[in-house]
């Protein structure tokens, strides 16, 4: 970590290169480089080829309304570790066109579609620029600042109608389709029928058929209502016989425009909403958001709070991984015995959350500069006995139960293979990436909180198939137990908050990208503040969503039944995918 790579004389360093093709950001609190739109693809080509920035973490946009510009923001990293490089493209708000970077980073595919969907930025050269979270024919681009949702009340919370002259009015009594709903010009709700999905089907249409044989491809819908899809998620697969030749995920059934809600909220009010992203791992989500906003505020939590945070995050990781492994077996057809065994352990972990944070799933435990409350002593004892006795025992039991099982092996080995290069290029993160042999873990690659001083291994496996992902999760649980043991030993006494708890925090203007290693992968929060009580921009880089970019690649040539397994091994949570 100490010996920095320095370019030999005569060879252009990365800062020099960037200075030659863009301008450095000068606004207070901002960082990175502004690159002209037409150059962006070249710049990324160079950055990934010459300087090793091969991993595109987040791609999003910021609306500068009432100014007439939109910014497209890219965060790229090196897959060998290190901090972010941030690039921005500033475009005109009326007709924003940016060259697509999907040829360089495949991981940009869904993220660019999302930016098109929510901001209306056109990415020229994108292979499939359709809306992703909303339906085709939706009017407007909701994350633009001048777009207003149904039940719109005010630009920002707290609403003035609540106090001091609050008169409760149930939402039922309001008409949601009022003058704040925009329809396309020739649209009448009464005559509307949902558009056919020609664009989608055309995309998947078969090539020339096998000569001599009269076989055709069959388009098959899996979901949105199907137990294998872990929620309301749809996969449209074109099959040749039983083999998948093309597969497109269709998302957005659970879309609630989390980011728009976030921009209406104050900074603190957002915290409980992050619980609802990936509802299995709410503590991790809290962590990511707290890290991002604390970066912006320039505060660090006291020692004890850091230890409590890591403790909760690692317990969450165990709960999430054990469930992912259990439910993977559901997808394999071992209906509910393994998943209920793993749910038992999760129950006990949730009991700890309940006694500490007050709620089992929607914990809302983290605050900026600390945590909400200290852990009660008897609960700490319970964590002790979980960590030192029960969890290791039960993880071993799960190992004995499933790892050697021939049925599990036959169904998962060599299924859904993704190579290391593909995985990095597709921006896949978390256990899925590490199962492909890339030792990339944000806790090590770009350490946050107190992870630097904790001992643990980054687990990697070499095959990149479903079985390896299962093994990585299993081993990571053991590593989490190892971290927890250290945390319990070292936890100091002391305060759990810096400063007094405030209901309205002061966040200086600027931007911050905070990321943590969530159980599903890299969870990033991009927060922009303009000094007001509400964030100007709040973006969630959700691992489940970005990991889905690689789904088609993994499923090609596999059987339909394998697609279910592969989806199970990605361990998505739809609350986070659709946001």
């Amino acid at each position, binding site marked *: 970590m100490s010996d920095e790579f320095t370019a030999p004389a005569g060879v252009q360093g990365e800062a020099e290169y960037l200075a030659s093709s863009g301008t450095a950001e000068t606004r207070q609190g901002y960082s990175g480089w502004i690159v002209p739109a037409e150059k962006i693809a070249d710049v990324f080509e160079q950055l990934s080829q010459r300087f090793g920035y091969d991993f595109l973490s987040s791609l999003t946009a910021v609306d500068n309304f009432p100014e007439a510009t939109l910014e497209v923001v890219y965060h790229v990293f090196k897959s060998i570790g290190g901090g972010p490089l941030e690039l921005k493209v500033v475009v005109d708000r009326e007709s924003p066109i940016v060259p697509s970077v999907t040829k360089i980073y495949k991981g940009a595919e869904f993220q660019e579609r999302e930016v098109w969907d929510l901001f209306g930025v056109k990415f020229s050269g994108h292979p499939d620029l359709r809306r992703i979270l909303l339906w085709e024919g939706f009017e407007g681009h909701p994350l633009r600042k001048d777009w207003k949702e149904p039940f719109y009340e005010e630009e920002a919370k707290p609403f003035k109608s*609540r*106090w*001091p002259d*609050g008169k409760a009015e*149930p939402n039922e009594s309001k008409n949601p389709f009022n003058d704040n709903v925009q329809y396309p010009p020739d649209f009448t709700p009464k005559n509307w029928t949902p558009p056919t999905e020609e664009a989608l089907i055309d995309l998947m249409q078969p090539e020339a058929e096998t000569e001599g044989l009269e076989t055709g491809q069959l388009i098959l819908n899996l979901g949105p209502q199907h137990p294998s899809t872990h929620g309301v998620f749809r996969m449209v697969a074109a099959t040749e016989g039983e083999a998948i030749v093309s597969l497109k995920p269709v998302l957005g059934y659970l879309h609630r425009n989390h980011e728009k809600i976030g921009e209406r909220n104050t900074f603190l009010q957002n915290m409980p909403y992050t619980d609802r992203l990936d509802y299995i791992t709410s503590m991790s989500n809290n962590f990511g958001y707290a890290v991002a906003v604390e970066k912006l505020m320039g505060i660090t939590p006291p020692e004890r709070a850091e230890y409590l945070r890591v403790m909760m995050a690692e317990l969450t990781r165990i709960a999430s991984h054990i469930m992912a492994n259990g439910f993977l077996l559901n997808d394999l057809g071992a209906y509910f015995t393994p998943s209920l065994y793993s749910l038992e352990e999760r129950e006990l972990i949730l009991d700890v959350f309940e006694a500490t944070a007050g*709620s089992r799933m929607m914990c809302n435990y983290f605050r900026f500069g600390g945590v*909400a409350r200290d852990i*009660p002593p008897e609960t700490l004892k319970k964590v002790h006995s979980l960590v030192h006795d029960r969890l290791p025992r039960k993880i071993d039991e799960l190992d004995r139960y499933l790892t050697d099982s021939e049925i599990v092996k036959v169904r998962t080995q060599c299924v859904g293979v993704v190579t290391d290069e593909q995985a990095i290029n597709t921006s896949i993160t978390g256990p899925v990436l590490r199962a492909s042999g890339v030792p990339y873990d944000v806790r090590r690659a770009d350490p946050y909180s107190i992870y630097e001083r904790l001992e643990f291994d980054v687990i990697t496996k070499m095959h990149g198939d479903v079985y390896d992902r299962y093994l990585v999760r299993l081993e990571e649980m053991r590593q989490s137990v190892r971290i927890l043991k250290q945390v319990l030993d070292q936890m100091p006494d002391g305060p759990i908050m810096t400063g007094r708890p405030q209901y309205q925090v002061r966040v200086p203007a600027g931007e911050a990208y905070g990321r943590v290693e969530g159980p599903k992968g890299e969870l990033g929060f991009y927060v922009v503040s303009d000094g007001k009580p509400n964030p100007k921009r709040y973006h969630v880089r959700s691992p489940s969503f970005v990991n889905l970019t690689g789904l088609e690649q993994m499923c090609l040539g596999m059987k339909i039944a394998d697609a279910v397994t592969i989806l199970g091994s990605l361990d998505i949570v739809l609350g986070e995918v659709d946001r």
Partner: protein
Amino acid sequence: MIGFGLIKGLAVTLKRFFQTYFVTNKLGSKHYYTEEGIESRYDPSTEGIFTVQYPEEKPMLPEEFRFVPFLLYEVNEQGDKEFRCTACGICAKVCPPQCIWIKRMTDPATGRPSPHPEEFTIDIDICMNCGYCAEYCPFDAIKMDHDYELSSYSRENSVVSMEQLGKPVDYYAKIRPDNYRREEEARAAKKQPAAS
């Protein structure tokens, strides 16, 4: 040997099966529907089934458990309810889904606002149980409840008025003894320097 892994796995399920039987028999008839039985199922050393047979059995609630808020009142000598709330509006401002409506009382004599709520309404359909109102209330006037059985036949019932929200301080002391003790100590400490 093919099949060995499978047998090893099945041995785990078999062990679990017998464990469940022995654990249930250890406490005998006390395993279900007794406090002791429920407690044993919450212990990290428990084996076998730990389902709590709701609604016949109720799960154990830790003190910090939170569900929709209620308003604290004290009963004065005349037997009237005195709400602790001062209508300062912090809970309404901090509430993430904005489910709290407060109408501040105006003094009829002077026409100036007085520190009491005239109306205090919570739409518990919107409430997300985050607990911010209780956390940031400077007067310990609003707290999170332990009562989670709130189903009703009509949605109108979930817009809850001040009368329905009010609960005596004794109730609070009962559901959250530790918090209550801490807060009372802090109040006493605050009062003392003013008196001396």
